């Protein structure tokens, strides 16, 4: 039986799911194929739109020639980024011209966020305003973001509620005392203290964060005490750790934990801790494996199912076959070593960037391996980077370059395949990390690619235009 659909989406991350749902809502018959677990497990679960405008030009010209041993050489110098930005939309016009937001327009971002809000329902907040919120990061900073999980909401930094940050002696990601001092150094408007507590040390010393989450989720006893009660007891002695300028103590209003407060029953875990501790409870998003990222992934896949999108995971798209008119007829999906053709009217490429392996590279260059789309890049790989790790890194902007409809362009700026659209990290032009724009770029490009792919498939407008 031939595998066929109106729209085929390759890639199951935030962008692929957004594109698939957007296409399905246009009335298209959609199929999604993804290879590995999505990179959402590495994502914080915060939905950033645009938080900074980082400088793209160095403050002082870069040194010419190869790197040097450099002990006597000045490092790159870069101005501070503009930000944190209060309003992500008004800043879009000041991004570089080839940034996907500039190409697709601010409304693409609005549409993408609106679709996201609809998919996640009340699990996320932030849709009541176009302004960014500032949330604590596990690096001890705050960062601007457009949407935040309900579990993180009580940590919002534009609130003067006194705050306790809890760390665990057996977890090494941060030390709560330095964390609290860093927040203070960032100028937050609330008093904050940090406490390292003893919890679940019966687990082996390097137990994974998911182990803690599981124990809290099911309220399993730890050394005879139910996990949630045990955690509350460990934290309780620190509820008055905040010392004000006069030496007085203040009871904390809210308590931040590393994001492992349960999984399926996370709301219940937070509520019980809040009741026991008499303070609001929030999660601080962490690195991989990220529970907020995994929870979001679960929620999105349920939504995908509800929208009637067929999806399969575990098999990569390894190539395409085209017809004489330069349309992609079908993609080849590797199923246990056999290349199976999946045909569709239109295709959305959302296979990810350098991390998700939607972009591949070797010593000679960077390429998009599935469709062999054009990826602009300096010929010399020693021009892919600059010396300051947080400078304007060319590699961070690698990816295919789309037009306003999301169609990838070739080296001459022409549409490469009339029926292919691209979304997510495979699209270049943004340094999503420094801009704090990763999710927003996925949502905007995903929405445009899905909508356009569906329209083209349904209307049969995949003949060359112009």
């Amino acid at each position, binding site marked *: 039986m031939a595998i066929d659909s109106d729209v085929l989406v390759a890639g199951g991350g935030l962008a692929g799911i957004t594109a698939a749902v957007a296409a399905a809502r246009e009335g298209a018959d959609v199929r999604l194929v993804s290879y590995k677990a999505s990179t959402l497990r590495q994502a914080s679960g915060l939905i950033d739109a645009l938080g900074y405008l980082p400088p793209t030009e160095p403050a002082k010209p870069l040194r010419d020639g190869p790197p040097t041993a450099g002990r006597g050489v000045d490092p790159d110098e870069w101005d501070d980024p503009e930000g944190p930005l209060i309003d992500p939309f008004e800043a879009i016009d000041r991004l570089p011209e080839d940034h996907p937001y500039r190409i697709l327009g601010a409304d693409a971002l609005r549409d993408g966020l609106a679709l996201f809000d609809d998919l996640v329902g009340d699990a996320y907040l932030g849709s009541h305003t176009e302004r960014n919120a500032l949330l604590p990061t596990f690096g001890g900073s705050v960062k601007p973001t457009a949407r935040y999980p309900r579990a993180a909401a009580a940590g919002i930094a534009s609130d003067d509620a006194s705050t306790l940050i809890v760390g665990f002696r057996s977890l090494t990601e941060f030390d709560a005392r330095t964390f609290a001092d860093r927040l203070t150094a960032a100028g937050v408007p609330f008093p904050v203290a940090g406490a390292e507590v003893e919890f679940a040390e019966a687990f082996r010393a390097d137990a994974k964060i998911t182990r803690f989450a599981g124990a809290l989720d099911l309220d399993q006893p730890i050394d005879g005490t139910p996990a949630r009660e045990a955690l509350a007891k460990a934290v309780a002695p620190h509820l008055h750790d905040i010392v004000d300028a006069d030496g007085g103590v203040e009871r904390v209003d809210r308590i931040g934990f590393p994001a492992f407060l349960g999984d399926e029953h996370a709301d219940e875990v937070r509520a019980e801790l809040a009741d026991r501790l008499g303070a609001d409870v929030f999660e601080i998003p962490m690195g991989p494996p990220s529970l907020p990222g995994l929870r979001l992934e679960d929620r999105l896949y349920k939504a995908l199912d509800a929208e009637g999108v067929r999806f399969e995971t575990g098999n990569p798209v390894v190539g395409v076959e085209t017809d004489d008119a330069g349309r992609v007829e079908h993609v080849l999906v590797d199923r246990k070593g056999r290349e199976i053709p999946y045909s569709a009217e239109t295709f959305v490429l959302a296979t990810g960037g*350098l991390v998700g392996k939607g972009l591949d590279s070797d010593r000679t260059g960077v390429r998009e391996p599935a469709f062999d789309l054009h990826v602009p890049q300096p010929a010399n790989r020693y021009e892919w980077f600059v010396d300051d790790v947080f400078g304007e890194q060319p590699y961070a902007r690698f990816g295919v370059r789309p037009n306003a409809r999301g169609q990838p362009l070739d080296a001459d700026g022409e549409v490469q395949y009339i029926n292919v659209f691209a979304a997510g990290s495979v699209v270049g032009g943004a340094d999503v990390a420094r801009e704090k724009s990763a999710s927003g770029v996925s949502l905007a490009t995903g929405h445009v690619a899905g909508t356009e792919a569906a329209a083209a498939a349904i209307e049969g407008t995949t003949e060359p235009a112009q």
Partner: protein
Amino acid sequence: MSEQADVIVVGGGSTGCGVVRDLARRGLDTVLVEKGNLTHGTTGRMHGLLHSGGRYAVSDRKSARECIEENLILRDIAGHCVEETGGMFVKRPEDSEEYFQEKLEGCRACDIPVEVIDGEEARRREPYLARDVEKALVVPDGAVDPFRLCVANAADAREHGARIETHAEVTDVLIEDGQVVGVEVEHDTGPGKRVHREPGTTEEIRARYVVNATGAWAGQLGEMAGVDVEVRPSKGVMTVMNVRQVDTVINRCRPKGDADIVVPHETACILGTTDEEVEDPEDYPEEEWEVDLMIETLAELVPALKDARTLRSFWGVRPLYEPPGTGTDDPTDITRDYFLLDHDERDDLPGMTSIVGGKLTTYRMMAESISDHVCEKLDHEAECDTADVPLPGSEDFSVLREYMDEFGLRSPVGRRSAQRLGSKTDDVLKSVSPNPVVCECEGVTRAEVRHAIGEAGSDLNAVRLRTRASMGNCQGGFCTHRIAAELTQEYPEPVVRDAEDELYQERWKGQRHALWGRQLSQAMLNHLLHATTMNRDGDPAGLNASVDFAAFDAGPDTADDPTGGDAGADSGTAAADGGRPRAEGGVDGDR
């Protein structure tokens, strides 16, 4: 501040550390000053080969004999720094048979144990060797951890009363009445351990004798004393692979050339190297062709290297020396022997001797010979015992290894900790509880990191070198912040932040040379973790402008909206059950 010592040793590489140990053990009051970390210059930037002498068995038999003698001594006195990997000189079809025979005879003549095996046997021992490798000479090469070796020497010196000052750059050589009487140093963050944000100080240290053991920098120190020391710094690249494609040192059996050695080192393999004379040991180009040459040429011996994951590359400068007038053009032809330059005899400047040339494998012998020389100058009679007394950490190490096998330390993490710590294992690992893993790639636990912080202050690069934390696949992406968090016990927030930034930037330096394939993916993941998730680049604490927190979203249930009603159409929905009213009461009531 001024202090009178017997001897000042300038340079904290293998030579300087060996000298300070030797002199301290002979009862002299000795100070070591080093401008960076121990091994900062050349010692920490080599491929980690413990020579059997095989490499010099044709061209330089004196060096070859010294190597095998010292090789055997180091296995005894520095067991926890040495891995007895064994080595091979492999011959490909295009390599000269005549040279192979000369190498074999040379090894025999220098008393280097040697065995000839055919290609099949070589591949049985090292399955990734190329199919067309014809045969190999087996020699007792090994791998040595230069940093651990230097730290152990310095620690022993300190136990014998020496003072060790790192991050203490010599800014002047003091000369009075035509004689060297000491040095002026600038302590980067004051004397003792390096701690970020502590102010620097200047100190004059006076001594009866000064040893210039600054290697490639010997000319610069000489200049401060007004004497010429003609070192010819020569750079070489080392490329680090993410796994051990081979467990034996693999040498190409041909006369000389670039890219002819693969050294298994801890969890990695190190490919080396090039040999190019440079003007300035601190500022020279690190070039793409050098990295490409390592991978392509050494893939002729181990084809898997071609597509293997490269973690980073680094460069070192050899302190080559040749007596004035030798006139060698090609640095590969310059002797690897070492020289004592007595500036009294040579330049009429008493009170100082430079030691130049040489190599890590023979560091102890060089140290012994210059220590003999210094003792003679100072009329001090004492025997050298450094060939017989184990270095700290190596005492009864073989016994410990058996103990590890027998009892608890069966996990890979425990085993690796024990290999790094040697006989200190018990004390260090039991010092901290709980003891979670901080660096997952290299299996480094909190106890080890804290122990290293105790020795090195807030200098996380020194912690890295002591523990290997942040030296694996992620190159610090997943652990820089975790290592820095361990500073919290002792240091305030700004120190932790500076230390963290410094380590992260240092890790980037080497990764730039490995930015393709999986390591480019890793770099992007690191970028996303540190910039997106942690916002280290845009942290308001590090920016000049302050943040108007009140102008940002304060949550859906806050009534005051400074910008007036905005576009949030469905704010009602979001606020309906958004955030419970602030909780009241609680387990401990209100105190």
